[in-house]
């Protein structure tokens, strides 16, 4: 029997996917207005996927463990940046440099993740705002280390990294020595013009890395610890009664996320080619989270599909709006403000929808429970 599609189904589909639908409409409107060529857009989107997907993927595991959106991924980004600062200062180049940066970043990310996880265990039920504040707090500590610690306490002296005054890291560090070394290791170029420029570049190795991480996440869901995390995410008390070490599992989820975020930041920055020591990390959490939510994820549910759809839609909007603003109103700045408004707005909308949905579900289950009791009494 064919299932009838009722208006209720349509409404449910719409309400569950409202954010991606808004974005698809928005992009559909902006594409002709901005007037970019299809080839340019595809190339740009491939670049954005390469840059950001590792970062966005790092958000999945805490969501699985019921800890919401991990705003503390900024901590991982800081760890990755510290790794890159060291590597640039030592002048380790190319892929070995990035690998070494990852090795240096890992223990830092583990410690930071452990700190974040233990803090979140003390703030159950308000993980998101707490992880958000942790990222702010740690930003101060990071600045203390990088601005006053590096040079006198942590012996770095390379003038490309350290300020002439002898302490503190420069505002921007040129990552020329490691720039795009993973991407260019094995890149396929399509549709280039006769000068060999333009067209679409596909960095194969980076894609292999990203696919590998996706597979790891898929595999991880099926392991014992992954199952535990899902149980904890479903209901902490039930999980505890089933003998799962809830606190430990939650800390582990955050640690894994932080470490992946550190690797993601290294990939992101090596693709960008410059490190803004005091800025790069602070916005990355917000943009990654917005991208994930645009892909249709919610605070309690997110999949790999959401990650990629989200990055494509969100970054398409990001590329299009300044140009669309310029063409439409004659001011690119409006487009820039608009895209920031949209990123914040998307997060707000998703959070609100999630809270409303959870409350409705709670109310429904309570009603069902009451109904069941009544029927029992009758029988």
């Amino acid at each position, binding site marked *: 029997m064919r299932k009838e599609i009722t208006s209720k189904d349509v409404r449910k589909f719409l309400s569950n996917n409202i954010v991606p639908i808004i974005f698809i409409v928005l992009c559909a409107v902006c594409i002709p207005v901005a007037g970019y060529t299809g080839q340019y857009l595809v190339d740009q989107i491939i670049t954005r996927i390469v840059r950001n997907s590792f970062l966005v993927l790092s958000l999945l595991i805490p969501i699985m463990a019921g800890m919401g959106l991990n705003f503390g991924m900024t901590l991982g980004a800081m760890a990755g940046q510290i790794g890159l600062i060291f590597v640039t200062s030592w002048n380790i180049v190319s892929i070995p440099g990035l690998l070494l940066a990852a090795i240096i970043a890992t223990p830092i990310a583990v410690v930071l993740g452990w700190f974040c996880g233990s803090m979140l265990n003390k703030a159950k039920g308000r993980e998101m705002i*707490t992880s958000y504040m942790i990222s702010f707090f740690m930003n101060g500590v990071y600045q*203390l280390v990088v601005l006053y610690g590096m040079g006198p306490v942590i012996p770095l002296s390379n003038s490309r990294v350290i300020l002439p005054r002898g302490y503190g890291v420069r505002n921007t560090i040129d990552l020329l020595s490691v720039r795009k070394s993973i991407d260019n290791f094995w890149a396929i170029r399509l549709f280039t013009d006769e000068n060999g420029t333009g067209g679409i570049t596909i960095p194969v190795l980076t894609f292999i890395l990203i696919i590998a991480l996706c597979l790891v996440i898929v595999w991880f869901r099926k392991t014992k610890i992954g199952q535990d995390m899902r149980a904890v995410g479903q209901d902490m008390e039930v999980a505890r009664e089933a003998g799962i070490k809830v606190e430990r599992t939650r800390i582990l989820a955050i640690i894994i996320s932080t470490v992946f975020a550190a690797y993601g930041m290294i990939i992101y920055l090596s693709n960008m080619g410059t490190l803004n020591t005091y800025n790069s990390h602070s916005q990355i959490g917000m943009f990654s989270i917005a991208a994930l939510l645009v892909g249709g994820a919610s605070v309690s549910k997110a999949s790999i599909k959401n990650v990629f759809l989200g990055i494509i839609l969100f970054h398409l909007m990001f590329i299009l709006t300044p140009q669309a603003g310029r063409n439409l109103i004659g001011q690119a700045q409006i487009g820039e403000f608009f895209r920031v408004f949209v990123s914040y707005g998307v997060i707000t909308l998703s959070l609100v929808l999630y*809270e409303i949905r959870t409350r409705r579900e709670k109310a429904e289950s309570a009603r069902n429970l009451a109904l069941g009791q009544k029927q029992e009494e009758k029988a």
Partner: protein
Amino acid sequence: MDRAMEILKGFGLPRLIITLFLVALFIIAPFAGISVTASITDVLGRFGQNAIMVLAMVPMIHSGCGLNFGLPLGIISGLLGATLAIETGIHGPVSFILAILYSTPFAIILGWGYGKLLNRVKGGEMMIATYVGFSSVAFMSIMWLILPYSSPTMVWGYTGQGLRTTISTEGFYYHILRDTLSINIGHLSISLAEILFFAFFAFIIWAFLHTKTGTAMTAVGSNPVFARASGINIDRQRTLSVIMSTWLGALGILCYQQGYGFVQLYQGPMYMAMPAVSAILIGGASVNKANITNVIIGTILYQGIVSMTPSVMNSLIHTDMSEVLRIIVSNGMILYALTRKTGASR
């Protein structure tokens, strides 16, 4: 001894450290060649500027909506009031009153909507408040560009369109409170009007919290089940508290502008909630408990540290670590409050 420990515990270790730090700063200051009286003047001036924004935290904490990270919404109402007052072109003290009057309807409407929204997301208020604040700031950034303002003091000179990032309040309500009723004793100058202005609103809030509606609001925050049982309309109380907070936020920013001298538009209000939130927490409030004393103590401590650290540090070690220290202290304080077990489940 036990009692002393008890008091100490109630006071909280971070608060104790911050107080001692501030006292130490004041003790060191003369040796570093900084005049104590000038410092006190500075701290009190900052207190007058910022205290009302900190006061804006109180109603929402009382009704159980948590820390008002959505303060930028209130600030935006204030900015709308300020820009409209300047647009009318009336100079002098009247412009300050006009700004308050103009910002009030915006604060009430925005606060009402914001309150309705927060009622639908009970339990997740703080995170959503943060992002409501951010999105409204971003939205208003677009609006400042396209709203049809025309006063030449505010609009970009060369395009004649869109507001400037900072607008001077000079000639309008610059130092309107600061310079009224100020007492000068040597280098020490205290602006009575500013403090009285704050005291007036602090008193109103205090008195309000002791009226029937006020106690109902507190009941909603401290024990929602009991409040519901005794027939209090929870949602209405919460909306009312949010409107009050938003309006106080608007007043707060106007008071800030008259002291600071500039109206900051665009991204200016983005992170203004954080100092206010951490000030009230330093003053001894928690996520679900706050009073006027917390506001006063907190603002003095916070502003004291903010104004004293740079000068003392600079003259002692010739390194300005104050900004970084401020970030660590203020955000660490918020983090401490959020992770305390005693806080409600919210």
